[in-house]
């Protein structure tokens, strides 16, 4: 069969685009080389819905960021994804930095960001008492927010699948053959044919474009490292706290996450190897030292629960690359989507799906499209009566598997059997939070492994951490 559209890459961009495409009467497939959705940049970033004052007015970054942030409350509520409109602050730590705040304010106004305001030191400390007393002023953006990026991509994929998109995992596009009216994608698991191909391959989007003979895109992987802290210190700040960019470099941010942890980072270092998401001693020290400047009291590594890094897909040309390739008419590029890509994603997806549907001449909408991805059961948020009733109906909701986050067997089973469900331990973790707490799976990973083996009907040795060769066990003991 020949699909109308194939989307390469199930990060937030590919997933939301697939979901938007599902609104039209067309056939679509979403292809991902990893064992799960959101395995690239989408699982490792700052998770901020930027208000939109950073980007230069008139750029795609500026336009889509502001539109995307506006769509965010609606899309996240349709998809039942955690989103919180906590607002952000850019803090100036010296008089010299004040012009930069003014500059950002003016840029924001030009970009159409609402309700921006510069706060005095007193106003700032009233909002955020734990901020360093060295602070002199701050730019307040009340429209900024935070979101759970991987759950966003997972929910979008689930919803796309529910609405008829096919999802194929462990399928890597290795090469393409372009024909007059369709393209063959050559993958490790066989050929896939499609009339239009959407390139949402993140840091690899230049490689995909090159397969089509489009060599106009050049992506540099720019690494950002992070520290994640226990919920015990998740409340030291309410807003997302940025530092002013200075000639000495970009600052780091300190922010709560939607789940109540504290996140600090990132660094910014260009790297050669686009698969290298290792953390480094120097990078982690830099994050700690810089975060210290914003919030001096909290940053005690005793409360750290994990560290990670993500890769920005920085296009050498600077702006997002969105649109049909000039070299290959069947290729639609969504490349160079670095920050504020997550914030912009809902708007990029609407725009891309429209353009693709127009090109195919398939703009008729499905009557039975359902935008709602139902909220999975979250045992920890139920009240006593609801808990009691749920366990009576299904005792698996009474068996708590992850004790740090209070996640039940019922929720894990549900995550495995959801559309485009979990296939590995990290997949269960991203969908349910089992293993995301302070003990980092020390207690529950063996139980999650048992449940995965049982539900997927595979032997223990075949259960992996995140697909590929990442198996946990090596056969029986003596």
């Amino acid at each position: 069969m020949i699909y109308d559209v194939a989307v390469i890459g199930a990060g937030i961009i590919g997933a939301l685009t697939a979901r938007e495409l599902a609104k039209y009467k067309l056939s679509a497939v979403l292809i991902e080389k990893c064992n799960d959705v959101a395995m690239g940049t989408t699982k490792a970033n700052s998770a901020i819905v930027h208000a939109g004052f950073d980007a230069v007015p008139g750029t795609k970054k500026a336009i889509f960021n502001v539109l995307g942030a506006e769509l965010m409350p609606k899309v996240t509520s349709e998809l039942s994804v955690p989103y919180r409109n906590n607002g952000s602050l850019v803090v100036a730590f010296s008089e010299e930095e004040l012009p930069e705040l003014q500059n950002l304010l003016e840029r924001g106004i030009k970009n159409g960001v609402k309700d921006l305001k510069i706060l005095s030191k007193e106003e700032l400390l009233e909002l955020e008492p734990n901020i360093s007393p060295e602070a002199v002023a701050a730019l307040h953006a009340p429209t900024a927010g935070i979101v759970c990026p991987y759950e966003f991509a997972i929910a979008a994929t689930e919803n796309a699948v529910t609405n008829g998109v096919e999802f194929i995992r462990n399928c890597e596009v290795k090469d393409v053959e372009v024909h007059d009216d369709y393209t063959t994608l050559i993958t490790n698991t066989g050929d896939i044919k499609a009339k239009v191909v959407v390139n949402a391959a993140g840091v690899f989007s230049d490689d995909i474009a090159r397969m089509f003979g489009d060599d106009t895109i050049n992506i540099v992987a720019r690494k950002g490292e992070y520290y994640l802290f226990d919920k015990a210190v998740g409340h030291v700040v309410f807003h997302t706290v940025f530092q002013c960019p200075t000639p000495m470099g970009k600052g780091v941010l300190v922010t709560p996450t939607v789940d109540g942890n504290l996140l600090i980072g990132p660094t910014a270092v260009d790297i050669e190897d686009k698969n290298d998401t290792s953390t480094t001693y120097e990078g982690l020290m830099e994050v700690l030292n810089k975060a210290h400047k914003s919030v001096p009291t909290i940053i005690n590594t005793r409360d750290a629960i994990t560290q990670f890094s993500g890769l920005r897909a920085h296009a050498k040309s600077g702006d997002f690359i969105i649109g049909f390739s000039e070299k290959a008419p069947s290729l639609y590029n969504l490349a160079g989507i670095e920050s504020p890509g997550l914030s912009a994603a809902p708007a990029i997806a609407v725009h891309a799906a429209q353009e693709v549907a127009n090109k195919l001449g398939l703009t008729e909408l499905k009557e039975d499209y359902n935008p709602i991805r139902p909220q999975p059961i979250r045992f920890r948020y139920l009240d006593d009566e609801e808990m009691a009733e749920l366990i009576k109906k299904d005792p698996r909701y009474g068996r708590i598997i992850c004790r740090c986050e209070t996640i039940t067997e019922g929720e894990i089973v549900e995550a495995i059997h959801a559309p485009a469900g979990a296939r590995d331990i990290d997949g269960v973790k991203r969908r349910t939070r089992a293993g995301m707490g302070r003990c980092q799976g020390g207690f529950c990973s063996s139980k999650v492994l048992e449940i995965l083996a049982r539900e997927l009907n595979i032997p223990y040795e075949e259960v992996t951490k995140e697909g590929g060769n990442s198996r946990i066990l090596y056969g029986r003991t003596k």
Partner: protein
Amino acid sequence: MINYDIAVIGGGPAGLAAALKAKELGIEKIIILERAETLGGILEQCIHTGFGLHYFKEELSGPEYAGRFIEELKKTDIDVRTNTMVVDISSDKVVTAVGPNEGLLKIQAKAIILAMGCRERPRGAISIPGNRPAGVMTAGTAQKYVNIHGYMPGKKIVILGSGDIGLIMARRMALEGAEVKMVCEILPYSGGLARNIVQCLDDYGIPLKLSTTVVEIHGRERVEGVTIAKVDEKMRPIKGTEEYVECDTLLLSVGLIPENELSKSAGVDINCITGGPDVDEMRETSIRGIFACGNVLQVHDLVDYVTLEAQLAAEGAAEYIKKGEEEKKYAYTVNQNGVRYIVPQKININADRDVDLYFRVCQIYKNAKVVVKIDGETVISRKKPKLAPGEMETVKLKKDMIAKLKEDSLVEISVEESL
């Protein structure tokens, strides 16, 4: 809401001993709540011997040690609910628990004994840079895979941290045919028991590398190796001492953290050094009628002390139920030179009994003196050929010394190095 005299949270050795002792003291309605399918706590996966030398004067395996208490328990009418996880404790002693069989359980207790044990510190808490592949796990998780499930978590092993679980697992993995390359310890000494270093490493030719840590983890999907390096006095890696070690598994034994999320939600004061509640000599916490014992209070290396501590807590709880809330006046223990912490943190000056003070030292000492002072006056001075952070120490304050304590008296313990 169901009413009980005592609710015991956790059915490991601490919870078992506490419940049995309380029964023996005549308390009627007792319930043990345990989240695992079986009683016994961490002992169920400790199939090595080395338990009970002090308490039973016999060398038992973990399950055997627990088994003795579980047998006793069967002879009583103590209510036991396994598969039941406590999710909340309120300051007025309402316990909320959840289980597939129980559904949602609400218990009003007169007294509560906290016996939730501890958990292992994960990789993130010690910030090892590098990749995040499969094959990095805590020693306790590996122990569960090997001893409970019967599966090998790897074939070529490096262990970081020389805590007791790490040492025990070094031997266990070696016995199962894995190649245990080394145990790295960032400190200049091991935090484990001396006997474990001999029996688990020396006897198997496994090198213990002191003042050494893992500075990077390699491998995308599964661990392929680690880089180790020597550290300076401030525990910073020394450039130029890096060494690549090929392995498929990194086991972490880098510390245990008492499991006090429930205690905190009840409002119990937590000590920032032990990570457990502040308690008096009967192991009563800052909330009257809530007691704590075992690893939830302080990380123990010997289960025998856990049992003794649990019995004390049970005595305290029984007394509380029988006599009600009598006013207590406290003297306080203070850790001085060379002492990291002391349990209990305070002593009821009307205790009218001998009180054992448990403490740990900050570093290794040879031929040192342990000195106890009450309000500045030396009451005990004892020579010790060797003191090590890995071994818990005790001193006994006799009843007559306790009788001399006044409200707010200070009981200080220090280590004096003899020259």
